[in-house]
């Protein structure tokens, strides 16, 4: 991904941040993202993000787990190697419920966590640009993407007026690259 230019404003109060986000959207600036140290309920709505559908993915993985467990056990005990266990039925559905349940939960959890990591591009050795190192501590950091038409000075002033305690302009990579956090060198650039 290409490098882009951002105007970055940092806020300390949730209430101020919420109003600032609303103002920025109203003014028509291109809001890149807001980085916060903890989840702020309602911020996604104010930013106009759509709901995540990661739970739907979880449901699909769960269904996959149930059907896999059931069909596998059915195949093993009725077709591949029918064992006579005290003359009991080969298709012993009640006895398979625990394993079907456990496998459902296992598939749903593992699948969802992997999906989460994929969607958020999280993995060891993944490095991303950080607009402010206190964004994981106590600051709410808003990044506004500059388009060719954007006047940086104007946006900076706008953010200052909206209550930002710190405003600056940064040239930043928007994707991720392989690296470690003790070095800035880009070992590999993602496309």
């Amino acid at each position, binding site marked *: 991904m290409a490098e882009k230019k951002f105007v970055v404003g940092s806020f300390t109060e*949730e*209430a101020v941040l919420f*109003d600032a986000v609303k103002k920025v959207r109203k003014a028509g600036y291109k809001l890149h*993202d807001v*980085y*916060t*140290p*903890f*989840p*702020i*309920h309602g911020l*996604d709505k104010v*930013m106009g*993000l759509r*709901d*995540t559908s*990661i*739970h739907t993915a*979880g449901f699909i993985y769960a269904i996959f787990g149930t059907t896999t467990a059931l069909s*596998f056990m059915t195949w*093993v005990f009725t077709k*591949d*190697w029918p*064992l006579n*266990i005290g003359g009991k039925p080969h298709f*012993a559905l009640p*006895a398979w419920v*625990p*394993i079907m*349940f*456990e*496998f459902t*939960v*296992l598939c*749903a*959890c593992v699948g*969802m*966590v992997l999906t*989460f*990591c994929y969607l*958020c*591009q*999280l*993995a*060891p*050795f*993944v*490095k*991303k640009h*950080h607009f402010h*190192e*206190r*964004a*994981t*501590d*106590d600051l709410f950091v808003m990044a506004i993407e500059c388009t060719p038409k954007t006047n940086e000075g104007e946006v900076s002033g706008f953010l200052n007026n909206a209550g930002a305690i710190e405003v600056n302009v940064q040239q930043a990579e928007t994707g*991720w690259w392989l690296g*470690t*956090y*003790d070095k800035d060198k880009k070992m590999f650039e993602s496309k």
Partner: protein
Amino acid sequence: MALLKYESNVRPPLVEGKKDYHQVTEDIVRPIEGPPSKLWWIGFLVSVALLLFGVYSVYREVTYGVGEWNLNKTIGWGWDITNFVWWVGIGHAGTLISAILLLFRQGWRTGVNRAAEAMTIFAVMCAGQFPIWHMGRVWMAFFVLPYPNTRGPLWVNFNSPLLWDVFAISTYFTVSLLFWYSGLIPDLATVRDRAKLKWRKYMYGLLSFGWTGSTKHWQRHESLSLVLAGLSTPLVLSVHTVVSFDFATSIVPGWHTTIFPPYFVAGAIFSGFAMVQTLLLVTRKVLKLEEYITIEHIEVMNKVIVLTGSIVGIAYLTELFIAWYGMNKYESWAFMHNRLDLFSPYGWSYYLMMGCNVLSPQIFWFRKLRRNIGLTFFMSILVNIGMWFERFVIIVTSVYRDYLPSSWSTYYSPSIYEVGFYLGTFGLFFTCYFLFSKFFPVIALAEIKHILKKSGEDFKPAMEPIEEESAETFYKEVSHHH
């Protein structure tokens, strides 16, 4: 948007003292950034020593067979399976706190969930050792996995509760680990961004997976946590249910009862909370986190202990009643002679169990005693001794005298290596816990920050004017939907 979420001023604060977000980070990350204390080193080295003794004990057992533990033909399950069930039980509190209390929107969980989840993972790791090494020919342990082997293929028996256990325990471990780690990622990113030392930046950079704190990522993270909590809730109840099936689906007198699943689950929560108390009372003191793990947290957990302890008590009495009232002579014999008779070989263990698990927690009906830290610590250990004896009573007193009096066991007592194996798992557990408390934030940073402005002591007075407002104004101005 004056406040993120309203919480009545009547509720005691969950974070004490004058705090802002940065101070929370400082307080919780500080122990990670400094060198470990002398006390830490002593504790850690003692744990490692115990672990090594455990490794030696296991080596003896693998070399000479399970007879090395003093198991015999009558008592095939002794301390090993007792310890297995005990550790699995302890491993229940973490997921209960993080999952069920998340669904119930219990704010106090935020102070204790991280450490409790870690405890769960380590406890399940310890539990898993026992059935594995108990196999004797441990190099064939992979036989429990359903794979197309070269003998047919001869598959595992999916109708067997022992196989259900394989699935239950391994799923529980995996899910707990994923739940715990996905919660840790943002907090590890906080440690990374504060790091000054090169190795620390490198290490936490790897561990935090490149987390930035983007709003979209938080939105997904919240959704993920909620669904994982929803899945873990039936999971945590199922795990000890399945463990109880190991006994309840057999026809051994003393085991063949339908009450086992709920009774085991209540007991598991009971012992798990006791272990959380043991660990956190020390952790909060040593890491100076009394303002985050407050006396309120301790009191709430003591309430859970008295509740679950009483449920366990009811279960014991029900079991006893049914043994007396029911028509099964063998069941009745197991209770009346092997357990209730104080002068039978193991009668003492039944009374020890009753005393520790049913009688002693009743003192927590008194508020003053619930808020007494020294007493809570003592009780937390007493409860876990009681819960260990519960499993010992269930296992050993049921099997040592079976249908054939000629094979009744002479008095069984464990060998030093069987005890050593148990001590070894303590070593494993505490080695892991010491490493965790040194290198990871023991309190969920982001979650504490999330509740700070509604439950922090410093922010509580701001609730007063809102409480005086009419319900209608309150609804319009303060409430917001999730």
